[in-house]
């Protein structure tokens, strides 16, 4: 029992932190203290999670292996990385941060459980929690009409998602008598052509698609992200993704493997749609956050396109792309934290005019990160693109390859708009001085990118051994 409690300690720490943030005595204006507490608790939880990565508390409910460790690390890393610039934001805006931090803890908690879940009930619960957490964060943008409407839409979709999960769970339980992954897999092997079972699978997958913000369920997230606060925007772009992808991969490899043949075309359709909508969507607006939000849809579409067979090679290629994307996107987000005018963080493209003259280093970094996302060498993004495209070529998907590359050209237009505004528009606008911490964060992410670009073997071969754990 004691042993189980110890193994459960990472989750316990997160729960305690969450409860303290929600119900504890707090100073509304002490964002700094709130973040300090959250950081310590998150770090503690992370250390414990790493130490007990292969220990399970309740057999059959969760699993622990190198695969879960890898995605846990990414989740915790993203959360911690988000804390750093967000603290600056909350302090500068003089706003309370306990709800934000609380939601972040909720996301990490549900995310880590989702990654290691071995039971559909837990998976459904985690997904529901994630949806709630996302909704609460979106709801934080008080006073903006479109956000209000957007959050309501998100809530509506989230409720439908939860209903779908519940219906799927009921059907699964009906068909297999248990919600454990192993039992579900057996049921799917037997009822391969059972339409009802397949519908349940579809419902579950749809919720994941909603959580990942892939097309055609990108509506609820991408459109409202343009108006959210910067920390929330960064949260959506970086934090829940690793958890959801981890859980999604786990679900597909361990449960849906028998019906993957029937799902493959669906995944392909979703992926191609995401790639297309992401590319076109990013060109359609003047809101820089919306551009990156649609960019996310595009990039995650590529990840799904690569992953769709869920073999070890596919997972490896998809993971490389995802990792590079997260790293680069984080860099971009930090750059956005560094560019503000009169204390206001920037939304519209036109506000970035002349940024290169006033903030040359941040602009240069933003430029590098964007070109990296386009997969241009010598930036790290090339490695991700190369890995994904190589996988597609390996399986003779030449048409998809060409489609993808053409969409990449369309996406390039959107990114070039940003470059053009920053560099080629000669406007003498004034920008606020950026915090040293922002420069440090940019420098660190850049250094990490350079190191990985020079020695990519850890990314390509090192992580592969960890991902193999999923297939053992």
């Amino acid at each position: 029992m004691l042993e189980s409690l110890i193994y459960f300690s990472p989750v316990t720490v997160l729960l305690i932190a969450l409860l303290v943030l929600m119900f504890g005595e707090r100073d509304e204006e002490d964002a700094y203290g709130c973040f300090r507490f959250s950081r310590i608790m998150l770090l503690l939880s992370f250390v414990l999670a790493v130490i007990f990565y292969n220990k399970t508390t309740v057999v059959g409910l969760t699993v622990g292996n190198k695969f879960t460790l890898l995605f846990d690390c990414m989740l915790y890393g993203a959360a911690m990385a988000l804390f750093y610039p967000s603290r600056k934001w909350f302090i500068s805006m003089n706003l309370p941060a306990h709800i934000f931090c609380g939601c972040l803890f909720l996301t990490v908690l549900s995310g880590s459980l989702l990654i290691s879940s071995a039971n559909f009930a837990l998976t459904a619960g985690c997904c529901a929690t994630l949806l709630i957490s996302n909704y609460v964060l979106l709801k934080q943008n008080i006073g903006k009409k479109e956000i209000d409407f957007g959050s309501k839409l998100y809530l509506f979709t989230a409720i439908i998602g939860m209903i779908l999960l519940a219906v799927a769970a009921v059907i699964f339980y009906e068909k297999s008598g248990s919600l454990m992954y192993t039992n579900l897999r057996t049921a799917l092997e037997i009822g391969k052509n059972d339409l009802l079972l397949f519908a349940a699978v579809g419902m579950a997958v749809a919720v994941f698609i909603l959580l990942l913000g892939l097309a055609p369920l990108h509506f609820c997230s991408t459109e409202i992200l343009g108006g959210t606060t910067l920390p929330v925007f960064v949260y959506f772009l970086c934090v829940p993704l690793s958890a959801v992808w981890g859980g999604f991969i786990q679900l597909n490899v361990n449960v849906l493997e028998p019906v993957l043949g029937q799902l493959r075309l669906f995944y392909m359709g979703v992926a191609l749609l995401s790639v297309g909508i992401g590319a076109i969507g990013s060109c359609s607006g003047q809101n820089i956050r919306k551009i990156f939000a649609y960019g996310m849809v595009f990039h995650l579409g590529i990840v799904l396109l690569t992953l769709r067979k869920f073999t070890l090679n596919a997972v490896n290629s998809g993971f490389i792309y995802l990792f590079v994307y997260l790293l680069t996107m984080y860099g971009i987000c930090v750059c956005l934290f560094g560019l503000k005018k009169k204390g206001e963080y920037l939304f519209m493209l036109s506000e970035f005019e002349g940024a290169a003259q006033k903030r040359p280093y941040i602009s240069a970094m933003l430029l590098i990160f964007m070109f990296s996302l386009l997969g241009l060498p010598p930036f790290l993004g090339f490695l991700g693109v190369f890995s994904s495209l190589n996988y597609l070529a390996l399986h003779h998907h030449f048409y998809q390859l060409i489609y993808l590359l053409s969409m990449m050209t369309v996406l390039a237009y959107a990114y070039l708009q940003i470059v053009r505004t920053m560099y080629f528009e000669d406007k003498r606008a004034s920008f606020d001085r950026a915090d040293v911490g922002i420069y440090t964060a940019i420098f660190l992410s850049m250094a990490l990118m350079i190191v990985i670009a020079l020695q990519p073997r850890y990314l390509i071969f090192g992580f592969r051994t960890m991902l193999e754990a999923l297939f053992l």
Partner: protein
Amino acid sequence: MIAYTVLLLFCIGIFSSIKVGVKVDKVLAFVTFASLFLVFANFCDGMLDAAEHSFSFMWNTSSGRDLKFEIISNPYNYALVMPCFLITLLGCLHSVLFRAEERKSAYSSLLILNLTALIILITSNNFVQLISALFIVDILALFMIKDIKAAQPYMLLNMVADMVLFSVLALINSRVDSLDIKEILRYRQIGFHADFAALAGLTAIFTKLGFAVFQVGNMALKDIRFHRMQNVLLLSSPMAALILLLKLNMLWRISDYFNIYADIACYVTLVWAFIGSITVNNFQAKVIYWQTAFWALMVELLRFYGFAWIPNFTYLLIEMYVFISALYLLYFYNNRCRNVSQMMRLRLTHKKRLASVAFVLLLTAAAMANTLTQMYNQENYRCIWLFAGLFSVSTATVIGQVFFYQGKRYSGVQHDISFKWGVFLELIALCCCLLYRAQWKNPALWAVPAVFALLCACPLLWKTAYFYKVRYWQRGDVLNRIYLVIIKSFRLCGRVFWLLIDRLFLDKVILGTAVGASHICLRTFRKIHTKPLFGGVVIVLVMIGLLWYSYLAGGGYNG
């Protein structure tokens, strides 16, 4: 050895190009002339003892092909170099005798370097050396002309001709896989586009000689200094073209059309030059027409003599040089008047000087008549008669107008012009040398100067001065205008291509369509995204459709 001469000439050329003060320049020009004279003497000495020598070094190597720079000394090359050398020497002498140049030594240096290039052209044995020397002669012509406006058409036309020759030689090389000129024989056997090569090459040569239709380049020289024009006409590109005509004669003979083409080109040129020289008012333009007619005669005679260079050709060239020098004196004594109509008003002022010129001209006519009668035979008589007739009439007309025809009183400033004893004696001496070998019983020797004198005194011919007042004739050669139209049409073509293909087709049609399509895409996209109800329906339909299709395609329904 000619190589030795080339080296000396190159050194003198470089030496005399040194920039010095005005006084030193005169000395330097004289020293240059003296040195050139010594080299000439040495050259003549070598010519008497003309054994076959070859000087060569490896110039470049590429694609397994060695390119040698060769200077071959043999009697033929010596004979061919001789007129060029002599005319260059005379040119340098005139540079010393006349105050026509600010920097006499530099001008002499140009002439000497040009001679060096001509010798390299004459002695070359491979295509690359041949074409290189030709290009160098053309570049030096640019400096000899010194007038940008005049150099423009001359250089451009010559450049086009050089490019055509370049193409022809490249084509031959591509077939015979050798740079040796003698390999043209093998090309004759292979015969790959032989007619094209021969006729294109010949056209390029005619262009450089300034034949009818291609005379625009040479005609532009009418506005530069007389002595420069004279040297360019006799020593530069046209002379190089004549040498090329000789060196590549095997190529021309490949084509069956060669004879007829050459005939037509030469006769048309003769007639054209005749008309031009009679009607045009500009004195230098007249000289250019006469020179062009002379080149036409040379080409025809060379063809009839099987492209063998006999001494009479050398004499003809020198006679032509003397003739133009005499005209230069006429021009000089006439206050450097550009137009004949102005010269007509000056005739009373410098009677003695003009008489000296008339004397030289008569001697030249005699010398020329002597050479032509020596070359006269059953094959070429038509050509010689035509040339002699037209040339005599046109020159006599102009000279008669200058000497006898009364124009309006000249109102401009008349300079006191000194008698050029040096040049006069030089020309007399040259004429005497040329006539020294004459057979005195030859009736043409006496008849031609007599007829020439009579024609000069024929008032009917003077009346052609009427054309000088007709603005249409004086506006320039009609072909000049045609060339301008051609250039304009080229430009227009370029502009139309640019507008039609680049701007209209690429920019407006292709890109416009792409931009339009992308706008439609974006509009549809926005429409879906701004109407949640419509969007929601679409989403649900898409999702279900995709899932259903995937299920079916995965074998779900049948399985």
